[in-house]
Protein backbone atom coordinates (compact mmCIF):
# COMPACT_ATOMS: atom_id res chain seq x y z
CA UNK A 1 0.00 0.00 0.00
CA UNK A 2 1.32 3.45 -0.90
CA UNK A 3 0.82 6.81 0.81
CA UNK A 4 -1.93 7.81 -1.60
CA UNK A 5 -3.98 4.71 -0.84
CA UNK A 6 -3.42 5.18 2.87
CA UNK A 7 -4.64 8.77 2.71
CA UNK A 8 -7.68 7.66 0.77
CA UNK A 9 -8.56 5.09 3.45
CA UNK A 10 -8.14 7.62 6.26
CA UNK A 11 -10.31 10.10 4.39
CA UNK A 12 -13.04 7.48 3.89
CA UNK A 13 -12.97 6.36 7.50
CA UNK A 14 -13.24 9.96 8.69
CA UNK A 15 -16.04 10.69 6.27
CA UNK A 16 -18.11 7.68 7.26
CA UNK A 17 -17.59 8.41 10.93
CA UNK A 18 -16.59 4.86 11.77
CA UNK A 19 -15.66 4.45 15.40
CA UNK A 20 -13.13 1.82 14.49
CA UNK A 21 -11.60 0.51 11.29
CA UNK A 22 -9.28 -2.40 10.87
CA UNK A 23 -7.54 -3.75 7.78
CA UNK A 24 -5.24 -6.71 7.77
CA UNK A 25 -3.07 -7.98 4.93
CA UNK A 26 -0.39 -10.64 5.03
CA UNK A 27 2.42 -8.15 5.45
CA UNK A 28 0.76 -5.27 7.19
CA UNK A 29 -2.00 -4.23 9.54
CA UNK A 30 -3.83 -0.95 9.88
CA UNK A 31 -6.11 0.15 12.68
CA UNK A 32 -7.79 3.53 12.84
CA UNK A 33 -9.73 4.50 15.90
CA UNK A 34 -11.56 7.70 16.75
CA UNK A 35 -10.58 9.19 20.05
CA UNK A 36 -13.98 9.40 21.67
CA UNK A 37 -17.37 8.05 20.74
CA UNK A 38 -19.00 10.98 18.95
CA UNK A 39 -21.65 12.44 21.19
CA UNK A 40 -25.06 13.04 19.70
CA UNK A 41 -24.64 16.80 19.73
CA UNK A 42 -21.25 16.65 18.09
CA UNK A 43 -22.63 14.50 15.29
CA UNK A 44 -25.53 16.78 14.52
CA UNK A 45 -23.43 19.88 14.22
CA UNK A 46 -20.44 18.38 12.48
CA UNK A 47 -19.71 19.21 8.88
CA UNK A 48 -18.76 15.59 8.26
CA UNK A 49 -22.42 14.69 8.68
CA UNK A 50 -23.37 16.66 5.61
CA UNK A 51 -20.80 14.83 3.53
CA UNK A 52 -21.98 11.39 4.56
CA UNK A 53 -25.68 12.07 4.16
CA UNK A 54 -25.60 10.62 0.68
CA UNK A 55 -28.34 8.12 -0.19
CA UNK A 56 -25.95 5.24 0.45
CA UNK A 57 -26.56 5.22 4.16
CA UNK A 58 -24.05 2.99 5.91
CA UNK A 59 -25.79 -0.06 7.32
CA UNK A 60 -23.97 0.39 10.60
CA UNK A 61 -26.51 -0.08 13.36
CA UNK A 62 -24.87 2.11 15.96
CA UNK A 63 -21.69 0.03 16.22
CA UNK A 64 -21.52 -1.28 19.73
CA UNK A 65 -22.45 1.99 21.42
CA UNK A 66 -25.11 1.20 23.98
CA UNK A 67 -26.94 4.52 23.80
CA UNK A 68 -26.88 4.59 27.56
CA UNK A 69 -26.39 7.82 29.44
CA UNK A 70 -22.69 7.26 29.20
CA UNK A 71 -20.63 9.36 31.53
CA UNK A 72 -18.31 11.23 29.22
CA UNK A 73 -14.78 10.39 30.18
CA UNK A 74 -12.40 12.89 28.66
CA UNK A 75 -9.20 11.29 27.45
CA UNK A 76 -6.87 11.87 30.38
CA UNK A 77 -4.19 13.58 28.36
CA UNK A 78 -2.53 15.07 31.41
CA UNK A 79 -2.66 11.79 33.29
CA UNK A 80 -1.14 10.00 30.36
CA UNK A 81 2.06 12.01 30.63
CA UNK A 82 2.51 11.01 34.25
CA UNK A 83 0.78 7.64 34.69
CA UNK A 84 0.41 4.33 32.94
CA UNK A 85 -3.17 4.10 31.62
CA UNK A 86 -5.04 0.79 31.47
CA UNK A 87 -7.69 0.86 28.72
CA UNK A 88 -10.62 -1.37 27.86
CA UNK A 89 -9.87 -3.89 25.08
CA UNK A 90 -13.57 -4.40 24.32
CA UNK A 91 -16.92 -2.64 24.50
CA UNK A 92 -18.84 -3.92 27.50
CA UNK A 93 -19.83 -3.46 31.11
CA UNK A 94 -17.23 -2.62 33.76
CA UNK A 95 -17.19 -4.60 37.01
CA UNK A 96 -14.85 -3.79 39.87
CA UNK A 97 -15.61 -6.99 41.81
CA UNK A 98 -15.83 -10.70 40.89
CA UNK A 99 -19.45 -10.86 42.11
CA UNK A 100 -22.06 -8.57 43.67
CA UNK A 101 -21.18 -9.47 47.26
CA UNK A 102 -17.39 -9.41 47.00
CA UNK A 103 -15.19 -6.41 47.57
CA UNK A 104 -13.50 -4.68 44.65
CA UNK A 105 -10.40 -6.21 43.07
CA UNK A 106 -8.44 -3.02 43.74
CA UNK A 107 -8.89 0.39 45.36
CA UNK A 108 -7.08 3.67 44.81
CA UNK A 109 -3.83 3.48 46.72
CA UNK A 110 -3.39 -0.27 46.25
CA UNK A 111 -0.10 -1.60 45.01
CA UNK A 112 -0.34 -3.86 41.95
CA UNK A 113 2.05 -6.20 40.18
CA UNK A 114 2.02 -7.39 36.57
CA UNK A 115 -0.84 -9.90 36.45
CA UNK A 116 -2.88 -8.40 39.30
CA UNK A 117 -6.57 -8.50 38.32
CA UNK A 118 -8.00 -4.97 38.19
CA UNK A 119 -11.54 -5.49 36.91
CA UNK A 120 -13.80 -7.52 34.62
CA UNK A 121 -15.33 -6.27 31.38
CA UNK A 122 -18.37 -8.24 30.26
CA UNK A 123 -20.02 -8.36 26.87
CA UNK A 124 -22.67 -10.98 26.10
CA UNK A 125 -21.45 -13.32 28.87
CA UNK A 126 -17.87 -13.03 27.71
CA UNK A 127 -15.80 -12.11 30.72
CA UNK A 128 -12.49 -10.37 30.20
CA UNK A 129 -10.37 -10.07 33.31
CA UNK A 130 -8.19 -7.02 32.94
CA UNK A 131 -4.81 -7.37 34.60
CA UNK A 132 -2.11 -4.82 35.24
CA UNK A 133 0.88 -5.07 32.93
CA UNK A 134 3.19 -3.13 35.24
CA UNK A 135 4.06 -2.80 38.91
CA UNK A 136 2.87 0.36 40.61
CA UNK A 137 0.16 2.11 42.56
CA UNK A 138 -3.46 2.59 41.48
CA UNK A 139 -3.97 6.36 41.49
CA UNK A 140 -7.24 6.76 39.58
CA UNK A 141 -10.26 4.66 38.66
CA UNK A 142 -12.10 6.39 35.83
CA UNK A 143 -15.29 4.30 35.63
CA UNK A 144 -18.04 3.46 38.11
CA UNK A 145 -18.96 -0.16 38.78
CA UNK A 146 -21.62 -1.47 36.39
CA UNK A 147 -21.15 1.28 33.79
CA UNK A 148 -20.77 0.67 30.05
CA UNK A 149 -17.31 1.23 28.63
CA UNK A 150 -16.14 1.86 25.08
CA UNK A 151 -13.24 0.32 23.25
CA UNK A 152 -10.03 2.01 24.35
CA UNK A 153 -11.69 3.91 27.19
CA UNK A 154 -9.33 4.59 30.11
CA UNK A 155 -10.12 2.45 33.16
CA UNK A 156 -7.23 2.86 35.58
CA UNK A 157 -4.20 5.10 36.03
CA UNK A 158 -1.19 3.37 37.54
CA UNK A 159 1.79 5.26 38.92
CA UNK A 160 4.75 3.05 37.98
CA UNK A 161 7.21 2.04 40.64
CA UNK A 162 10.31 4.18 40.48
CA UNK A 163 13.57 2.39 40.39
CA UNK A 164 15.87 3.27 43.22
Amino acid at each position, binding site marked *: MNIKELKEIIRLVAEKEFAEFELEQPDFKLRIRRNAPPSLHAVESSAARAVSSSPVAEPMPA*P*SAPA*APVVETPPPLEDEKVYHIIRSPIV*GTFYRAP*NPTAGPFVEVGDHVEPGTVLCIIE*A*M*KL*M*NEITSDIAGEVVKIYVENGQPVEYGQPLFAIKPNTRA
Partner: protein
Amino acid sequence: MREIVYWYDSVTSTNDVARELAEAGAEEGTTVVAAEQTAGRGRYARRWHSPKGEGLYHSIILRPSAPPSRAPLLGLIAAVALAETLREDYGVVADIKWPNDVMIGGRKVAGILMELETEDDRVKYVVLGVGVNINQASFPEEIADVATSLRRETGMIYDVERFRHRLFVRLQRWYEAWRAEGEAHVLERYEQLSSYVRGQQVSVLCGERRVRGRSRGLAPTGALLVETEDGRQEAILTGEVTKLEVVS
Protein backbone atom coordinates in the same frame (compact mmCIF):
# COMPACT_ATOMS: atom_id res chain seq x y z
CA MET B 1 -10.06 -27.19 15.01
CA ARG B 2 -9.32 -30.70 16.27
CA GLU B 3 -11.34 -32.43 18.97
CA ILE B 4 -8.95 -33.17 21.84
CA VAL B 5 -10.74 -34.21 25.00
CA TYR B 6 -9.61 -34.42 28.62
CA TRP B 7 -12.00 -36.22 30.96
CA TYR B 8 -12.02 -35.54 34.68
CA ASP B 9 -13.98 -37.17 37.46
CA SER B 10 -14.35 -34.00 39.52
CA VAL B 11 -13.06 -30.44 39.12
CA THR B 12 -13.82 -27.06 40.70
CA SER B 13 -14.93 -25.69 37.35
CA THR B 14 -14.08 -26.89 33.84
CA ASN B 15 -13.33 -23.26 32.88
CA ASP B 16 -10.57 -23.11 35.51
CA VAL B 17 -8.90 -26.28 34.18
CA ALA B 18 -9.27 -25.18 30.55
CA ARG B 19 -7.65 -21.82 31.35
CA GLU B 20 -4.66 -23.57 32.86
CA LEU B 21 -4.33 -25.74 29.76
CA ALA B 22 -4.71 -22.71 27.49
CA GLU B 23 -2.01 -20.84 29.41
CA ALA B 24 0.23 -23.88 28.96
CA GLY B 25 -0.30 -23.65 25.19
CA ALA B 26 -3.07 -26.18 24.51
CA GLU B 27 -4.31 -25.96 20.93
CA GLU B 28 -7.82 -24.87 20.04
CA GLY B 29 -10.47 -27.55 20.17
CA THR B 30 -8.99 -28.81 23.43
CA THR B 31 -11.94 -29.72 25.63
CA VAL B 32 -12.20 -30.28 29.37
CA VAL B 33 -15.11 -32.47 30.48
CA ALA B 34 -15.95 -33.26 34.09
CA ALA B 35 -18.46 -35.71 35.54
CA GLU B 36 -18.96 -33.20 38.33
CA GLN B 37 -18.07 -29.59 39.17
CA THR B 38 -17.69 -28.62 42.80
CA ALA B 39 -17.75 -24.89 42.02
CA GLY B 40 -19.43 -24.64 38.63
CA ARG B 41 -20.34 -21.08 37.94
CA GLY B 42 -22.47 -18.94 35.73
CA ARG B 43 -22.42 -15.27 35.01
CA TYR B 44 -21.24 -13.04 37.84
CA ALA B 45 -20.35 -16.01 40.08
CA ARG B 46 -23.86 -17.48 40.09
CA ARG B 47 -23.66 -21.19 40.81
CA TRP B 48 -24.24 -23.73 38.05
CA HIS B 49 -25.90 -26.77 39.61
CA SER B 50 -23.61 -29.66 38.53
CA PRO B 51 -24.57 -33.04 40.06
CA LYS B 52 -22.36 -35.97 39.16
CA GLY B 53 -23.04 -37.64 35.83
CA GLU B 54 -26.35 -35.88 35.22
CA GLY B 55 -25.29 -33.05 32.97
CA LEU B 56 -22.66 -32.08 30.46
CA TYR B 57 -20.14 -29.77 32.09
CA HIS B 58 -17.39 -28.79 29.72
CA SER B 59 -15.15 -26.04 28.40
CA ILE B 60 -13.58 -25.68 24.98
CA ILE B 61 -10.47 -23.65 24.15
CA LEU B 62 -10.76 -21.44 21.06
CA ARG B 63 -8.05 -19.33 19.49
CA PRO B 64 -9.63 -17.22 16.74
CA SER B 65 -7.29 -14.76 15.05
CA ALA B 66 -9.70 -11.89 15.62
CA PRO B 67 -9.68 -8.62 17.50
CA PRO B 68 -11.14 -8.93 21.02
CA SER B 69 -14.20 -6.95 19.92
CA ARG B 70 -15.27 -9.96 17.81
CA ALA B 71 -14.91 -12.51 20.60
CA PRO B 72 -18.43 -12.10 22.11
CA LEU B 73 -19.83 -13.59 18.89
CA LEU B 74 -18.43 -16.96 19.94
CA GLY B 75 -21.20 -17.22 22.52
CA LEU B 76 -23.83 -16.74 19.83
CA ILE B 77 -22.14 -19.37 17.67
CA ALA B 78 -22.23 -21.80 20.60
CA ALA B 79 -25.90 -21.02 21.24
CA VAL B 80 -26.72 -21.78 17.60
CA ALA B 81 -24.83 -25.10 17.83
CA LEU B 82 -26.65 -25.98 21.07
CA ALA B 83 -30.12 -25.13 19.77
CA GLU B 84 -29.49 -27.06 16.55
CA THR B 85 -28.23 -30.11 18.44
CA LEU B 86 -31.31 -30.13 20.67
CA ARG B 87 -33.71 -29.61 17.77
CA GLU B 88 -32.16 -31.75 15.07
CA ASP B 89 -30.48 -34.54 17.05
CA TYR B 90 -32.90 -34.77 19.99
CA GLY B 91 -36.16 -33.45 18.53
CA VAL B 92 -37.00 -30.89 21.20
CA VAL B 93 -38.13 -27.34 20.46
CA ALA B 94 -35.20 -25.33 21.76
CA ASP B 95 -35.20 -21.54 21.75
CA ILE B 96 -32.34 -19.07 22.31
CA LYS B 97 -32.77 -16.29 24.83
CA TRP B 98 -30.32 -13.54 23.94
CA PRO B 99 -27.42 -13.65 24.24
CA ASN B 100 -26.81 -17.35 24.79
CA ASP B 101 -29.20 -19.11 27.14
CA VAL B 102 -30.86 -22.11 25.54
CA MET B 103 -34.43 -22.68 26.63
CA ILE B 104 -37.11 -25.33 26.32
CA GLY B 105 -40.64 -24.19 27.15
CA GLY B 106 -39.33 -21.03 28.77
CA ARG B 107 -36.94 -22.88 31.09
CA LYS B 108 -33.19 -22.95 30.81
CA VAL B 109 -31.63 -26.20 29.60
CA ALA B 110 -28.14 -24.91 28.74
CA GLY B 111 -25.98 -21.95 29.61
CA ILE B 112 -22.72 -20.46 28.45
CA LEU B 113 -19.97 -18.55 30.20
CA MET B 114 -16.89 -17.43 28.31
CA GLU B 115 -13.58 -16.09 29.49
CA LEU B 116 -11.38 -14.01 27.23
CA GLU B 117 -7.65 -13.54 27.50
CA THR B 118 -6.04 -10.88 25.32
CA GLU B 119 -2.47 -10.18 24.37
CA ASP B 120 -1.30 -7.08 22.49
CA ASP B 121 -4.87 -6.20 21.55
CA ARG B 122 -5.54 -9.62 20.01
CA VAL B 123 -7.42 -12.63 21.32
CA LYS B 124 -4.94 -14.94 23.02
CA TYR B 125 -7.64 -17.50 23.75
CA VAL B 126 -11.28 -17.84 24.71
CA VAL B 127 -12.50 -20.50 27.09
CA LEU B 128 -16.05 -21.40 26.10
CA GLY B 129 -17.78 -22.96 29.09
CA VAL B 130 -21.03 -24.80 28.32
CA GLY B 131 -23.31 -26.50 30.81
CA VAL B 132 -26.22 -28.63 29.58
CA ASN B 133 -28.84 -30.21 31.83
CA ILE B 134 -29.31 -33.68 30.42
CA ASN B 135 -30.36 -36.38 32.90
CA GLN B 136 -31.46 -34.36 35.93
CA ALA B 137 -34.77 -35.68 37.21
CA SER B 138 -35.28 -32.69 39.48
CA PHE B 139 -33.64 -29.41 40.49
CA PRO B 140 -33.05 -27.63 43.78
CA GLU B 141 -36.07 -25.60 44.86
CA GLU B 142 -34.48 -22.21 44.10
CA ILE B 143 -34.11 -23.02 40.40
CA ALA B 144 -36.94 -25.54 39.94
CA ASP B 145 -39.15 -23.00 38.18
CA VAL B 146 -36.52 -21.75 35.77
CA ALA B 147 -34.48 -24.86 34.89
CA THR B 148 -35.21 -27.96 32.89
CA SER B 149 -33.33 -30.96 31.51
CA LEU B 150 -33.55 -33.04 28.38
CA ARG B 151 -34.81 -35.89 30.55
CA ARG B 152 -37.59 -33.77 32.07
CA GLU B 153 -38.72 -32.73 28.59
CA THR B 154 -38.70 -36.17 26.96
CA GLY B 155 -38.83 -38.68 29.82
CA MET B 156 -35.70 -40.39 28.53
CA ILE B 157 -32.13 -40.81 29.71
CA TYR B 158 -29.27 -39.93 27.38
CA ASP B 159 -25.59 -40.66 26.85
CA VAL B 160 -23.84 -37.44 27.93
CA GLU B 161 -20.68 -38.12 25.93
CA ARG B 162 -22.65 -38.67 22.75
CA PHE B 163 -24.39 -35.33 23.27
CA ARG B 164 -21.01 -33.65 23.78
CA HIS B 165 -19.62 -35.02 20.56
CA ARG B 166 -22.70 -34.08 18.51
CA LEU B 167 -22.51 -30.57 19.91
CA PHE B 168 -18.80 -30.35 19.13
CA VAL B 169 -19.40 -31.29 15.49
CA ARG B 170 -22.01 -28.55 15.09
CA LEU B 171 -19.91 -26.02 16.93
CA GLN B 172 -16.93 -26.86 14.76
CA ARG B 173 -18.98 -26.37 11.60
CA TRP B 174 -20.32 -22.94 12.65
CA TYR B 175 -16.99 -21.81 14.03
CA GLU B 176 -15.15 -22.68 10.82
CA ALA B 177 -17.89 -21.02 8.75
CA TRP B 178 -17.61 -17.84 10.82
CA ARG B 179 -13.84 -17.76 10.39
CA ALA B 180 -14.06 -18.31 6.65
CA GLU B 181 -17.05 -16.11 5.79
CA GLY B 182 -17.74 -13.78 8.69
CA GLU B 183 -20.76 -13.46 10.92
CA ALA B 184 -23.67 -12.85 8.51
CA HIS B 185 -24.70 -16.47 8.05
CA VAL B 186 -24.50 -17.47 11.71
CA LEU B 187 -26.44 -14.37 12.79
CA GLU B 188 -29.15 -15.22 10.26
CA ARG B 189 -29.36 -18.76 11.66
CA TYR B 190 -29.46 -17.37 15.19
CA GLU B 191 -32.47 -15.22 14.33
CA GLN B 192 -34.27 -18.30 12.97
CA LEU B 193 -33.63 -20.17 16.22
CA SER B 194 -34.51 -17.39 18.66
CA SER B 195 -38.00 -16.11 19.40
CA TYR B 196 -36.55 -13.14 21.29
CA VAL B 197 -34.46 -11.13 18.89
CA ARG B 198 -36.80 -9.84 16.20
CA GLY B 199 -40.24 -8.28 16.47
CA GLN B 200 -40.71 -9.21 20.11
CA GLN B 201 -41.77 -6.81 22.86
CA VAL B 202 -38.95 -7.10 25.37
CA SER B 203 -37.72 -5.62 28.57
CA VAL B 204 -33.95 -5.66 29.12
CA LEU B 205 -32.37 -5.08 32.49
CA CYS B 206 -28.93 -3.55 31.91
CA GLY B 207 -27.40 -3.16 35.34
CA GLU B 208 -29.84 -0.81 37.05
CA ARG B 209 -31.29 0.56 33.84
CA ARG B 210 -34.32 -0.97 32.14
CA VAL B 211 -34.88 -0.73 28.39
CA ARG B 212 -38.31 -1.54 26.97
CA GLY B 213 -39.17 -1.82 23.34
CA ARG B 214 -39.37 -4.03 20.31
CA SER B 215 -36.42 -6.23 19.34
CA ARG B 216 -35.02 -5.43 15.89
CA GLY B 217 -32.53 -8.22 15.26
CA LEU B 218 -28.82 -8.34 15.87
CA ALA B 219 -26.01 -5.92 15.05
CA PRO B 220 -22.92 -7.40 13.33
CA THR B 221 -21.28 -7.45 16.77
CA GLY B 222 -24.08 -9.67 18.07
CA ALA B 223 -25.54 -6.83 20.12
CA LEU B 224 -29.33 -6.91 20.52
CA LEU B 225 -31.04 -4.02 18.76
CA VAL B 226 -34.06 -2.66 20.60
CA GLU B 227 -36.31 0.10 19.30
CA THR B 228 -37.63 1.96 22.31
CA GLU B 229 -41.05 3.59 22.56
CA ASP B 230 -39.65 7.02 21.75
CA GLY B 231 -38.26 5.67 18.49
CA ARG B 232 -34.59 5.43 19.42
CA GLN B 233 -32.60 2.33 18.62
CA GLU B 234 -30.31 0.91 21.26
CA ALA B 235 -27.61 -1.72 20.74
CA ILE B 236 -27.43 -3.78 23.93
CA LEU B 237 -24.31 -5.74 24.81
CA THR B 238 -25.06 -6.85 28.35
CA GLY B 239 -28.42 -7.43 29.90
CA GLU B 240 -31.13 -9.78 31.08
CA VAL B 241 -33.93 -10.06 28.51
CA THR B 242 -37.52 -10.91 29.32
CA LYS B 243 -40.45 -11.06 26.92
CA LEU B 244 -43.31 -8.74 27.63
CA GLU B 245 -46.67 -10.43 27.39
CA VAL B 246 -49.32 -8.55 25.47
CA VAL B 247 -52.35 -8.19 27.71
CA SER B 248 -55.59 -7.96 25.77
